[in-house]
């Protein structure tokens, strides 16, 4: 079953999930790498052009060998030294990792890159692209043989709740018994939904933002029946933010 996630179950029973990179992102990364390979090859060719004055045969031989080494070695060397990333992968924030969560070994990097030759067949990455689309883990043949996958490598920062709620007065905090009832009755899923809405609110379209917080406020009001006077003047968004503040920062102000 396709989940778009790499799920690793550790012996300790912890389930770890990582977002898999899809074929389009990977193709864009490949396009950037292709451009980089062309650039590096042409730079080397320009440098070797100077040596042609001394020995044209040697310069042409060196150019042929260098082009081959750059084509084959670019991804191998970069993925080796940048821990699963090439320039293209770094730009698109994706990374090659072991499919079972183990340390990525140099042999895996070599195999996945050598097998690119088959993935490129018959042209324009057709075999690799089709395999990637059909595979549950978005693996091309090289990934399959090397037991690797490509994941998103965006480092998540630990959220700073102080910053999220700083400079705001929570008018609901004075009703401590209702706040306690709210924490008891709300489910983790509902709380998470509200928190995520607050965290992501700046990235929403104005109309979507209004609509989302209206729906959330309508949903949360029966769960936490605060007195009307403490809700006066609160927009839906302020109401949801105050609710989230009460849930996740219960000890503030005590």
């Amino acid at each position: 079953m396709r989940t778009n996630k790499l799920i690793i179950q550790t012996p300790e029973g912890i389930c770890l999930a990582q977002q898999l990179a899809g074929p389009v992102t990977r193709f864009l990364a490949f396009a950037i790498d292709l451009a980089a390979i062309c650039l590096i090859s042409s730079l080397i060719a320009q440098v070797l052009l100077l040596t042609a004055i001394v020995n044209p045969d040697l310069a042409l031989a060196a150019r042929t060998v260098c082009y081959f080494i750059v084509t084959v070695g670019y991804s191998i060397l970069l993925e080796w030294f940048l821990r699963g990333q090439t320039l293209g992968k770094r730009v698109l924030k994706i990374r090659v990792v072991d499919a079972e969560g183990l340390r990525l070994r140099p042999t895996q990097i070599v195999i996945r890159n050598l097998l690119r030759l088959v993935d490129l067949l018959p042209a324009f990455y057709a075999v690799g692209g089709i395999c990637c689309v059909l595979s549950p883990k978005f693996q091309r043949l090289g990934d399959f043989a090397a037991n690797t996958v490509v994941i998103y490598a965006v480092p998540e920062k630990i959220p700073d709740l102080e910053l999220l709620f700083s400079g705001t007065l929570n008018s609901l905090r004075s009703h401590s018994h209702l706040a306690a009832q709210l924490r008891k009755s709300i489910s983790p899923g509902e709380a998470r939904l509200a928190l995520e809405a607050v965290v992501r609110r700046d990235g929403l379209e104005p109309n979507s933002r209004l609509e989302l917080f209206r729906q959330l406020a309508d949903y949360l009001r029966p769960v936490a029946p605060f007195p009307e006077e403490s809700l006066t003047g609160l927009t839906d968004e302020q109401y949801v933010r105050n609710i989230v503040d009460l849930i996740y920062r219960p000890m503030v102000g005590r």
Partner: protein
Amino acid sequence: MIVDLKKFIARERATWEELDEMLKRVENQTITHLTLDEVQRLHYLYERTGAGLIKISTFAAEPNLVRSLESLLIRAYAEMQDVPSRTDTWSPRRWLFRTFPQTFRKHFRFFLAALALTILGGLFGGGAVAFDPDAKAAIAPFPHLLENPSQRVKEEESKPNQMLATAKGRFSAVLMTNNTQVSILALALGVTWGIGTLILLFYNGVILGAVIFDYVRAGQSVFLMGWLLPHGVVEIPAILIAGQAGLLLGQALIGWNSKESVSQRLRSIAGSLVTLISGAALLLIWAGLVEAFLSQYHEPILPYQFKIAFGLIELVTLLAFLIFAGREPAPAVGSSVA
């Protein structure tokens, strides 16, 4: 129950930061050896972070924090579950004189299969040219192989190749890179359960068989040996070794007589595949140099006897290397544990 997220983060942050710092040092190989205390500490931090993740996923499920801890734990898991021999420094000498020949012998049956298939292809190619002279045009990949062998020998011996006089280096580089590409393809096609590798080896055999038969029939056996032996005795085994790697990959995918999963089988042969293809590439560099600087020169510049002798010496040396290099000395009689 919902976790007081602020309090939880404040309490656990130091643990996460210490784990992150420790992992950075291990990943960047700032430290190659962890002391027992450090290993115990790493394990403690890993378990505590894991426990925190379970708690946060169950009772708070703050998505960014969950993802952050998952990413941290995956890194820790990789380091703790899989510690390859980072302490062993890779030695080119040890790899060349021990690892490569040992790996070749370990998977010798796949080399034999590649050889048998090439010979089969050779017999087919020779037979095709013998029974249908027009087959040569369909089989031969290069225009100079289409010429009448006797005519070509006459031309080569009367008029040395002028192009080579000024382009030996480039010719050699082209041969090396092309042959290495073919070798990589022979390995990579193993991913088609070995079928692609089988076809490639058979096709190589067909070309070789057709050329050999054509020259032998024309009475040009000596020229043929002088032309092919110096580079062929290295180039052909190199392609066969790449085919050996391809067939090994195919067998790992099919998994005959194996109770391991596909990923386990692939993991166990990964080192052998890289060793075999690297060895093949190394041989092809030598073959490319010999082909450009020696094979293309014929009598009267270079006597055929010299070229044939050179090729035979190379063959014996290569065989001796692959058969005997890196063999562990047999234990002395009576030295066994009582």
